[in-house]
């Protein structure tokens, strides 16, 4: 568990290295009802017809993975991920290794919050999805 008093600007979260398979991507798409009508998340050929290089991971799934980096860091403490703001920069393709990073950029003792830059990189260190998270360290 991370205590507010013990965290510092510049502390890192992760990196979390992941291999998201096509099946995992399809399972996610099905859960949120994107299984039908949005072939780009489930089928290479359908994605290519839309001008994409192949299947891509839903933006919401990237948001979920970036959030997971932060909630893993929070663990089972009562700190609360209160905000996650993401920007989808480059389509994320499954069946590749991606790495998720975090970095504490600000710490505000008045409301016991920390701001964390989070981002997802591919193997070429290209930033595919970037974001900012806020964590409240509740007493």
């Amino acid at each position: 568990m991370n205590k507010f008093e013990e965290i510092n600007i510049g502390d890192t979260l992760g990196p979390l290295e992941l291999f998201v398979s096509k099946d995992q991507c399809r399972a996610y798409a099905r859960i949120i009802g994107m299984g039908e009508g949005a072939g780009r998340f489930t089928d290479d050929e359908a994605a290519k017809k839309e001008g994409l290089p192949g299947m891509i991971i839903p933006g919401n799934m990237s948001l979920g993975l970036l959030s997971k980096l932060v909630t893993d860091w929070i663990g089972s403490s009562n700190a609360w991920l209160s905000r996650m703001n993401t920007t989808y920069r480059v389509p994320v393709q499954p069946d590749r290794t991606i790495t998720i990073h975090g970095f504490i950029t600000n710490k505000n003792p008045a409301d016991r919050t920390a701001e964390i830059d989070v981002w997802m990189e591919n193997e070429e260190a290209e930033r595919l999805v970037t974001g900012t998270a806020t964590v409240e360290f509740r007493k």
Partner: protein
Amino acid sequence: MAVNYDPALINKVFEVTEPVEVKAEKIKRYCAALGETNPIYTDEVAAKEGPYGGIVAPPSFAVTFRNGRHFFENVPRFGRRGFDAGKDVEFVSPIRPGDQVTLSSHVKEIYEKTGRTGTMVFVVIRSTLKNQKDEVLAHIDHRFMNRT
């Protein structure tokens, strides 16, 4: 050049969805798809001892609720087809199994931005998630980008 739109669009709720019940089984499948293993989301016994006194969904579960049938037809369009540029989610309260969740959506703002690649119009739609007790669970700002 300022972007033209009807100011009456802003803040007017255009859709409220029917309640959807959060099933423990769906939280489980969601966790499996994300590789989530934190016991406060997955293990009833451990979650009882945790900060929320029972299983809660991972915060990002908030984005799994489907927008209403008329959501996309109410997103104002400018220029070529818009695409999802990102989301800003404020997680207000934990989502629990048994919650009956509704989404209400309105246009929050419309603004123009000029970058290296030209002029873009951003449309921000805010969806607010509430449970059956009228408690706010989350606010989701969907950012759609249109190239003019």
